[in-house]
């Protein structure tokens, strides 16, 4: 009833392959955008920005980058956090060497650095596959974090080995540092994420996306039909690391405000991978759903006893929280191994034929 597709005729190939072949999808998307752009900012407190909205967006962006690589091109990577770190450190160096550079330019450039590093560590993927590749990407992970720790030039010889973010202005608005209003930071991140999402949706629908999917489904077959495997895999590494790098730079500049090398250690990689998998491999929207579950849910769970007026010791609460999240991950994997995006797709199909299922 709400999702009725009858009456929407496709009269040309273009309309059949359009971004939204069904009108309701576009309406739904507009609704979600309105939610993020208008409704949330109207109700959010500083805590909501800092602990829920901004992290969800940034994590979703990182997961999107990983999803390009793992979900579309089928190359499992556990080095995401390392590449995020490259983005963050590159952005830090660019802004400290050229302080007059606009922060947007710095962000875009820092993505290039992580893309280059990603391609370098992607080279083994031409020979190594599956879990062996996953463990090989761990080499990138551990090596990069070690480098952030040891290469003092990267953090400008800071005494405590950390990077700190200056206040940057963007057309007169302070957007980084402690003086930036959370709402401006939120909007900046939101716009970045929206732009990248649309770019990724279109890349994955286009030639590149199709090539990647062919490689994912069976690389030998893809090679036999004339796809250049090297180009396909390395381009996936490049695009993926670019997005991941930007997410890393956003993470430090627009959320944390300071970072130590440890931040980019392996738990972050796993967290991003979780988001991508729980959300749904090979899907863009899934990353957002996954981020809501993995990033926002624990925060909300932590608040729950306060709302219910229960007196639980915070350490116990944390234990229970970790248990619940672990159990939920297993639960969702059992219920729908293809992720929340697939769950949504099923609901949508049901809605289209509702209320007459036959």
């Amino acid at each position: 009833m709400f999702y009725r597709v009858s009456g929407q005729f496709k009269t040309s190939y273009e309309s059949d392959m359009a971004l939204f072949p069904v009108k309701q999808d576009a309406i739904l998307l507009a609704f979600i955008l309105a939610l993020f752009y208008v409704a949330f900012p109207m109700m959010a407190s500083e805590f909501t920005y800092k602990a829920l909205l901004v992290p969800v967006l940034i994590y979703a962006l990182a997961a999107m980058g990983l999803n390009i690589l793992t979900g579309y091109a089928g190359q499992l990577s556990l080095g995401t956090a390392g590449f995020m770190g490259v983005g963050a450190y590159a952005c830090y160096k660019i802004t400290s060497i050229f302080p007059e550079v606009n922060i947007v330019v710095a962000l875009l450039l820092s993505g290039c650095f992580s893309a280059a590093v990603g391609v370098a560590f992607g080279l083994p993927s031409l020979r190594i596959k599956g879990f062996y590749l996953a463990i090989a990407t761990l080499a990138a992970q551990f090596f990069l974090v070690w480098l952030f720790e040891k290469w003092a030039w990267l953090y400008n010889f800071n005494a405590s080995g950390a990077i700190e973010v200056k206040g940057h202005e963007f057309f007169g608005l302070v957007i980084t540092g402690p003086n930036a209003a959370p709402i401006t930071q939120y909007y900046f991140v939101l716009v970045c994420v929206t732009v990248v999402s649309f770019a990724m949706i279109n890349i994955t629908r286009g030639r590149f996306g199709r090539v990647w999917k062919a490689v994912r489904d069976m690389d030998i077959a893809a090679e036999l039909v004339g796809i250049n495997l090297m180009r396909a895999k390395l381009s996936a590494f490049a695009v993926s690391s670019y997005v991941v790098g930007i997410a890393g730079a956003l993470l430090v500049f627009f959320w944390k405000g300071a970072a130590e090398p440890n931040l980019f250690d392996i738990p972050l990689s796993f967290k991003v991978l979780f988001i991508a998998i729980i959300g749904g491999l090979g899907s863009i929207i899934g990353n957002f759903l996954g981020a809501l579950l993995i990033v926002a849910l624990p925060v909300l769970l932590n608040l729950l006893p306060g709302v219910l007026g229960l007196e639980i010791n915070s350490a116990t609460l944390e234990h229970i929280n970790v248990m619940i999240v672990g159990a939920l991950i297993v639960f969702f994997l059992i219920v729908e191994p293809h992720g929340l995006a697939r769950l949504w797709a099923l609901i949508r199909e049901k809605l289209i034929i509702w209320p007459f299922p036959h």
Partner: protein
Amino acid sequence: METLYQIFADPFVQIVSAPDFFLQVLWEGLVSGVLYALIALGFVLIFKSSRIFNFAQGIMVVFAALTLVGLHENGVPAWLAVPLTLGVMYLLALSVERVVLRPLVGQPDIILFMASIGVTMFLIGFGEFVFGGENKAMITAELGIPTGSIEFFPFGGFVLIEQKDLTAVIMAVLLVLCLLLFLNKTAMGRAIRALGDDHQAALSVGISLSKIWVLVWFIAGVIALATGIVWGARAGVSFALEVIAYKALPVLMLGGLESVSGAIIGGIAIGLLEKIFEIYWGQPLFGGNTETWFAFILALIVLLFRPQGLFGERIIERV
């Protein structure tokens, strides 16, 4: 020029001029290697039989060790605590199979991998909930592990061997021998290997999937307990032990995911090489702490030449 000297000449000069120290380095490397191999063994067994890259092996080590120490703290004597801990590990294997594995049969590898991380998180929360986060001492003496040390004086220097480490090595060797015997000589062991080769063929000749999985996870639990005891004797038992799981990953890359002997040889090779590299190259040239990545890079280089690891099964691809 000086850098070149430091890279190509100085380490060897040092090795020759202080051979006793070099022997000590070798011994320490060997002990670390055996410990890495033990953890890797748990991974290999489970991967062999169920194609699950079981990330929970690390936390199972902590869990087993904590259960043992926790039971002892509550007045259970050591000789009883060990079988009781094994019982707990059996229950764990049983519930993992029932709750996690059975519903996920036949899913892609990556899903099972993620599920094992879910199990890891659950066990971390559960373990801290039950045992608390304090650092606990392993009940080394109560278990009858000698704590003294043996000293040699070769080449005018000294080499020191902890009896604790020696016990660890002997225990690991025995464990591996038993395991190899079990896998190769018993019906159950053959069933495990059959399952690893082909699930459906194994099922069709009457091998019970769920029974074997429980068994395999239980064996992994036994290995975890052994690992927990020897690591715990070195540095105490706490949740920080969980990170040792990462040390097993390059071992798996190097040795191959399916090979028991690969895990042993890979573990020892990595233990030795990373120690030698750290002492003679890492510390003078890179400011130390190269152990975090050396093993990975080494394994990566090996993989470039042998994509299935040194002892892994040859990957045959068909279209």
